């Protein structure tokens, strides 16, 4: 169970297992980059980069969950996301939260 509230409504947190996180840096291939560059001139949504963010977010969350389950947690509370722009066309995503056990 992954939530971004401090507690899970209706559940009692029994153990705090520390901060867990997962991060990833991903990029799209050159062809998509060129197409996005052309789309950027016209404006509007850049679908290639929306997809890119979606993929990297899923990967970061999956890594965070793997980290938490390695510690024996069954939930992560207070999840936050941080992004940074490393270079153009690549995105770095970091997801972190507190691993806990709940009843």
């Amino acid at each position: 169970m992954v939530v971004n509230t401090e507690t899970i409504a209706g559940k009692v947190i029994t153990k705090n297992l520390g901060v867990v996180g997962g991060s990833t840096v991903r990029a799209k291939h050159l062809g998509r980059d060129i197409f996005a560059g052309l789309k950027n001139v016209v404006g509007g949504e850049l679908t290639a980069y929306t997809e890119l963010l979606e993929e990297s977010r899923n990967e970061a969350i999956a890594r965070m969950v793997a980290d938490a389950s390695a510690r024996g947690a069954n939930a992560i509370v207070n999840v936050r996301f941080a992004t940074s722009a490393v270079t153009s066309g690549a995105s770095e995503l970091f997801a972190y939260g507190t691993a806990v056990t709940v009843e």
Partner: protein
Amino acid sequence: MVDASVICWGPFLLIAALFAIFGIIWTIAYPLLFLYGAVFSGRRLNKSMSNIALRERTSIEHFGKDPLSNLKGAHIVGGVRNSGLVYSSIVHAPSHWQLLIASINGLFGGRIDILHRVISVGRAEATQRLREQAQAAGWDDVLNVRIDTAEMTPPSNQGTKAVEVFAYGTGVKYG
């Protein structure tokens, strides 16, 4: 001295040819796209704004109210059966025409409405997608919604000028 005939020119020529082709396409396509953006980007913004308003109305009808809130869940009376993370994002870019207008606008200072509109459309789209995600996952409510904005490119870098809006929250199912 290395004899020139020893060097394998194939890969270099291939890369050079690719650069040349891309350069030619860029020189031809850029003015056309720029003009297209100048004519249609404002209209497309209005269109997507009304489209978002329409979708917002249907999802508010589905939930009976706006599901998104900033509350942490302490107000909930009665139980919560299940909860989980919902998130959505969009990368939204102003057209180069709008950037040009904005830079001219910036010389005089004051409000830059044209960029404000681009970013608010991106934000409205991201929050609407969050509602749709919550609807698809079967949540009754979305708590503790955060909306983050970040740039796709480092500020010093020439490249894609776009804003990414990222909305997330905790979906709950009342028991």
